[in-house]
């Protein structure tokens, strides 16, 4: 069935670059792996009928957060010789991550899920009504959080020297602007 095939392709598009994000020694490569992972996650949201979340993911994550991450990777570039990879941490990290995944997978398989997919219909209007009625206070708090984050990022990147340090503020501003309007 083509639906299953699309799901498998989207899941692979999400998970295979995620392995690359985790294991790549070059952080620029990891950033581009993150691009494909976020794109695959957006595809999964679209597959589940969450059109608004998929578009928001594309705009905020890929258009905002990922650009910020890549900028920072390139601005704080360290030569390869000084970049250590934490090989001694791979074993405990892998053990702990596998343990957490085991618990999660055990839970997923143990619970008898009996949910069937609801009808796939546009969600933008419902989300707008929900944000303006039931979730009005979280919505306002989130706008405060975005304002605080904007001021905080601008303050942190400000420096006493006249050169540099201005790169982060405009990109950050655009990413929060998108969210306030959405």
């Amino acid at each position, binding site marked *: 069935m083509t639906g299953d095939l699309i799901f498998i392709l989207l899941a692979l598009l*999400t998970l295979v670059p995620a392995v690359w994000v985790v294991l790549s020694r070059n952080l620029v490569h990891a950033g581009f792996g993150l691009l494909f992972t976020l794109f695959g996650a957006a595809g999964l949201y679209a597959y589940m009928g969450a059109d608004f979340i998929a578009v928001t993911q594309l705009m905020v994550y890929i258009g905002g957060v990922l650009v910020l991450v890549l900028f920072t990777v390139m601005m704080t570039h360290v030569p390869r010789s000084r970049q250590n990879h934490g090989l001694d941490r791979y074993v405990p990290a892998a053990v702990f991550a596998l343990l957490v995944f085991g618990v*999660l997978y055990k839970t997923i398989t143990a619970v008898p899920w009996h949910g069937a*997919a609801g009808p796939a219909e546009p969600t933008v209007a419902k989300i707008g009504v929900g944000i303006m009625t039931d979730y009005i206070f979280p919505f306002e708090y989130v706008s405060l959080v975005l304002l605080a984050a904007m001021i905080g990022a601008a303050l942190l990147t400000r*420096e006493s020297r006249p050169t540099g340090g201005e790169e982060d503020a405009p990109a950050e501003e655009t990413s929060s602007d998108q969210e306030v309007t959405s």
Partner: protein
Amino acid sequence: MNVGLPHFLTVGAILFALGLFAVMSRRNAVGILMGVELMLNASNINFVAFSRYVEHAVDGQIMAAFVIVLAAAEAAVALAIVLAMYRNFGTANADVAQRLKR
């Protein structure tokens, strides 16, 4: 195979474990942040999957939207901190930086 809720939850669990691995094994602060982004995406996939297959409403999707907003704010502040750290210490290694000021 009939794609249902457990498949999406499994994808989310794998993504979460990968993000956790990145957070624990990376030394570069930006790499740690990438792991956090993976974990937030895993939680978002779970939110949307439950909203589609269990809840049949959009509350889970609204929560996912809030998660995306907070992830954007968190990324902005965290990357500003990384830049300040790089300016003060000349490295983005999370082990070296134990103070924000020199």
